[in-house]
């Protein structure tokens, strides 16, 4: 009985989270278009539904009805597998990210993340995001087109370079929390002890690396349209293309959630406990705070995309190895010194 209840709770959490992700991702696409329009003094999609709010559904229907083309030169199995690998990675990563504090419902403590208490939570995230590179590289390689291949190769080189500075920035956070558990990391940032304030350099390197890992502008070299047609997804159409598209936005959401968890205090609101609210209200406010931070970061991702031009490939590698990597190392040192002083 007990195990059934636990399984039931997990299932409900998975369902809620999966729906939130799907909805957010489809509306991210909508807001991407809206914000790009606003930044360029345009209006953006406004025909389907009120203010274009049904646009995502129209997009999905259109993509579903399109013919699915597989190039004759392609390796069919891998060509089909790659987009779903991308989606799989994008969706499973959320499992360990806590989106609220522990709440007590009917005398049962429920942690608000799908799989809480995994000792290697952050490692799990890093490992999965590395698998995400395979999706892009395999799609580029299996398409049998030079543009896709170039996109895929670029993606792998870029990911490897930025994974390093990302890893080292995370190390700075782990020194403080002394735990790989995401919920512990959140708790270690109580009050205004947010890692973003304590380790500004690490924050900047991590955010930069997150942009590079999600292939967003200014680091969207793998799909640089002017050079590579569509990059790694040139040869994809219909729902497989949509899968890549969804994965890109889901990755953006993961990156934002990670930044919130690691650097912006997760679901915590500074000095909320001073207000003396009941436990229920506190939990609601904290969950809302998590999603507010998440929304702001996702807006930031889109905002940056429409403000900054793409790097040249050599500049990208230069920044990755000669700037980001040393800065991340410096941050580890700084975090160590700070930890000595504070603890």
């Amino acid at each position: 009985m007990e195990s059934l209840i636990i399984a039931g709770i997990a299932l409900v959490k998975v369902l809620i989270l999966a729906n939130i992700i799907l909805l957010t991702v489809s509306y991210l696409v909508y807001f991407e278009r809206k914000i790009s329009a606003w930044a360029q003094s345009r209006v953006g999609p406004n025909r389907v539904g009120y203010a274009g709010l049904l646009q995502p559904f129209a997009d999905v229907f259109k993509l579903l009805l399109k013919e699915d083309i597989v190039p004759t030169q392609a390796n069919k199995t891998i060509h089909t597998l790659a987009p779903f690998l991308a989606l799989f990675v994008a969706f499973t990563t959320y499992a360990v990210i806590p989106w609220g504090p522990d709440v007590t419902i009917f005398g049962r403590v429920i942690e608000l993340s799908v799989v809480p208490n995994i000792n290697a939570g952050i490692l799990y995230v890093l490992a999965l995001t590395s698998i995400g590179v395979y999706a892009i590289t395999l799609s580029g390689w299996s398409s049998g087109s030079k543009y896709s291949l170039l996109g895929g190769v670029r993606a792998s080189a870029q990911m490897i370079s930025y994974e390093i500075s990302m890893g080292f920035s995370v190390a700075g956070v782990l020194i403080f929390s002394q735990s790989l558990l995401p919920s512990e990391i959140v708790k270690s940032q109580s009050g205004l002890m947010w890692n973003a304030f304590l380790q500004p350099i690490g924050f900047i390197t991590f955010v930069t690396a997150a942009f590079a890992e999600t292939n967003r502008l200014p680091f969207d070299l793998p799909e640089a349209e002017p050079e590579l047609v569509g990059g790694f997804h040139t040869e994809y159409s219909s729902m497989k293309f949509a899968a890549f598209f969804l994965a890109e936005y889901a990755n953006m959401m993961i990156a934002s959630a990670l930044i919130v968890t690691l650097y912006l205090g997760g679901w915590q609101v500074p000095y909320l406990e001073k207000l003396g609210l009941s436990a229920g209200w506190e939990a609601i406010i904290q969950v809302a705070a998590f999603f507010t931070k998440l929304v702001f970061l996702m807006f930031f991702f889109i905002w940056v995309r429409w403000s900054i031009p793409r790097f040249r490939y050599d500049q990208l590698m230069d920044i990755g190895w000669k700037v980001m990597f040393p800065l991340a190392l410096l941050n580890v040192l700084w975090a160590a010194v700070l930890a000595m002083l504070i603890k």
Partner: protein
Amino acid sequence: MAVKKRMKDFTLMEKIYLPSIVAGLSITLQNMFKPKYTMEYPEVKFMPSGHYRGRPVLVQEEDGGERCVACGLCSRVCPALAIDIQAAETEREKERYPERFEINMLRCIFCGLCEEVCPEEAIVMSKEYEIAFTNRQDAIYGKDKLLTPIADLQERIEFLRNNK
């Protein structure tokens, strides 16, 4: 090896790059709240002034007859071979008139040469830009569609008199 100082070398501030990013971000953020330039077309229509070259039309005099004397110059000059004229005689003072005057709107490139060459100021470019049809037959505009009362074309005719 001595490092050469070039004009385009960045200063330290520019090399840090973050200030420029912030500057760029603030510009786009300001833009998001500025008024938009988009004209929401089917609801709000673009109102061109006299200089606009819409579809070519035939000028219809106040008495209902056309100005055209079927000289064929427009047909001759049209680079897209869009105009087809069949001339006929009339009892009126000018003696000739086009029995059939057709412009194939799939061919017309809105160059305005017909208007420029016409000795009678009989064919002018209108302001009309909503030209759509569902088959090729409909694209051939006959006299019924081309004749436009002169009162509607005053602005263009004035523009031509001042600038042609």
